[in-house]
């Protein structure tokens, strides 16, 4: 049996029926990694020995008939900007090439406490800044659906590893769409939770007011299982103080009758691939057919979201990345004349161009004389966007829109730049800017057979509703079942 192809709940069933051991599952995933990752290149760091040891111990425990959590023994991966104690965490940057954090991110710890098995750390763009992993210090991650194509960015490693069945699920971060874009490009499910729903403790800060950790999974049920494990308030992240956790797995009913769903008109007017447009509009029809009230809605201010997101993100990044100075951890230039030289050489050599550009952009936006025009103005526009969304959510349980305007493009087709990122964020930035939850699920394929993602946004803390709509859609379609058909061997 190809155990690595299973979903989390399928694997759990087999374990409970004692048809397979934890070691068999982990070995199967490891074998798949060895088989495909030389092509997909999802991993930066592999923790295979630790994974095998973990599974050996779990089998020993299971033999003693001790109750274990549902995620116990299931192989997973973690985007490499999420700290894992004792396992190097690089942010895909030369700056943190050798950084081994002495602490773990809360989201990771919660899975680790359930005895999930970490397979390794997954590629991302440098400090999550990019669309393609072309800014990664290590390598580019390739799309399992077509190795000549990008797997998205920044969370490409996480999405590709799940799509290629190298891990059962992954933890990734989303600041402007990173997790959702990569999941959409790789044909898997990705959830960006409400800001403050999952602890950011131990997640290497990018845009602090928007960063969130979420699951990337093979289907909605797995996504709910993982989200259940990581959601909820954490004393170490004050922004999670008001998080209210629901029964997400329990909310997965195949029933959306009477739910009100808005179809975001602005997304379908211009700048969208024909296939993507058709697939999402079809998906909306499917939802309608399943009993939801689907209605067009216009949110004119969301057009401003990418610009506001770009400015706020850059400003926060410029400050958050000041700490990388070669003194306490991370890369440090060998020779320098004086302190200023240490700073400049370390930071110039340690960071790539995309990061430098972002940092300078943020520095510019916060500078005296520019603050009001850029940073403060972006915060005010955020107010307008947020208010518009709040109003929409008075009427609708969710808003449907594409996750991306295109499917995965070929390496080299687009220049990876802050400007390109800005444009690519147009459908994902609104949820980030307003801090609301959004889920992406597969809803079709384009002419090249590449997956298309549909995005559902909801009001704060409405993850259960989003998961239920996504689950219902999934139960009545088969897009999620199709896996990349590439012959690796």
């Amino acid at each position, binding site marked *: 049996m190809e155990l690595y192809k299973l979903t989390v709940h399928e694997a759990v069933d087999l374990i409970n029926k004692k048809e397979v051991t934890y070691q068999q599952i982990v070995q199967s995933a490891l074998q798949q990694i060895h088989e495909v990752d030389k092509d997909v290149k999802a991993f930066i760091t592999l923790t295979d020995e630790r994974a095998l040891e973990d599974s050996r111990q779990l089998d020993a425990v299971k033999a003693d008939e001790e109750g274990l959590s549902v995620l116990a023994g299931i192989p997973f991966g973690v985007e490499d900007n999420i700290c894992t104690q004792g396992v190097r965490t690089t942010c895909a940057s030369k700056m943190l090439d050798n950084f081994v954090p*002495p602490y773990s991110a809360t989201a990771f710890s919660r899975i680790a406490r359930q005895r999930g098995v970490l397979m390794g750390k997954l590629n991302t763009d440098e400090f999550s800044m990019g669309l393609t992993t072309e800014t990664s210090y290590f390598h580019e991650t390739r799309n399992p659906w077509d190795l000549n194509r990008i797997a998205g960015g920044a969370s490409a490693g996480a999405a590709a590893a799940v799509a290629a069945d190298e891990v059962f699920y992954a933890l990734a971060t989303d600041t402007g769409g990173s997790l959702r874009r990569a999941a959409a490009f790789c044909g898997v499910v990705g959830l960006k939770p409400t800001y403050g729903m999952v602890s950011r403790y131990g997640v290497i800060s990018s845009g602090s007011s928007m960063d969130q950790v979420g699951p990337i999974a093979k289907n909605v049920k797995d996504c709910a299982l993982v989200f259940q494990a990581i959601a909820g308030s954490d*004393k170490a992240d004050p922004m999670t103080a008001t998080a209210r956790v629901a029964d997400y797995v329990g909310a997965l009913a195949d029933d959306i009758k009477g739910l009100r769903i808005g179809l975001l008109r602005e997304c379908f007017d211009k700048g969208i691939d024909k296939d993507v447009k058709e697939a999402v509009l079809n998906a909306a029809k499917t939802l309608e057919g399943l009993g939801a009230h689907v209605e067009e809605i216009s949110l004119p201010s969301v057009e401003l979201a990418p610009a506001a997101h770009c*400015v706020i993100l850059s400003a926060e990044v410029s400050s958050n990345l000041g700490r990388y100075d070669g003194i306490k951890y991370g890369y440090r230039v060998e020779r320098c004349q004086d302190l200023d030289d240490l700073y*400049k050489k370390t930071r110039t050599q340690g960071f790539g161009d995309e990061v430098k550009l972002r*940092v*300078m*952009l943020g520095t510019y936006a916060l500078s005296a004389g520019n603050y009001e025009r850029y940073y403060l*103005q972006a915060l005010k526009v955020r107010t307008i966007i947020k208010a518009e969304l709040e109003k929409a959510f008075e009427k609708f349980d969710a808003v449907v829109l594409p996750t991306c305007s295109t499917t995965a493009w070929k390496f080299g087709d687009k220049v990876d730049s802050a400007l390109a990122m*800005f444009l690519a964020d147009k459908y994902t930035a609104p949820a980030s*800017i307003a801090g609301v939850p959004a889920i992406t699920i597969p809803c079709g394929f384009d002419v090249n057979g590449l997956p298309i993602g549909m995005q559902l946004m909801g009001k704060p803390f409405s993850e259960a509703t989003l998961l239920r709509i996504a689950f219902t859609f999934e139960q009545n379609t088969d897009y999620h079942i199709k896996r990349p058909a590439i012959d690796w061997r």
Partner: protein
Amino acid sequence: MEITVKDVEYLAEAAKFEFTEDEKQKFAQALSDVINAVDVLAQTDTQGVQPTIYVISVKNVFREDEVLPSMDRDILLKNAADVQDGCYRVPKVVE
């Protein structure tokens, strides 16, 4: 809005980067592109609109004044490139 090479030099100094002349040109162009793209914000009427700093309504989250164990110094300093006498070492700082 045009970002000049001089602007890039100022920003590089503030952010502690050093660039060749070619790089300065390149960054000036790239920055100008983004700055122009985000100028839609400045064109937006925000009269009377308050800025949103925090997207969720969390407030007054505190910790009590309790001493917790600090981290073992050897572990703390393990990631540092240059350590001397239990301290981080940097080139001589002239005040």
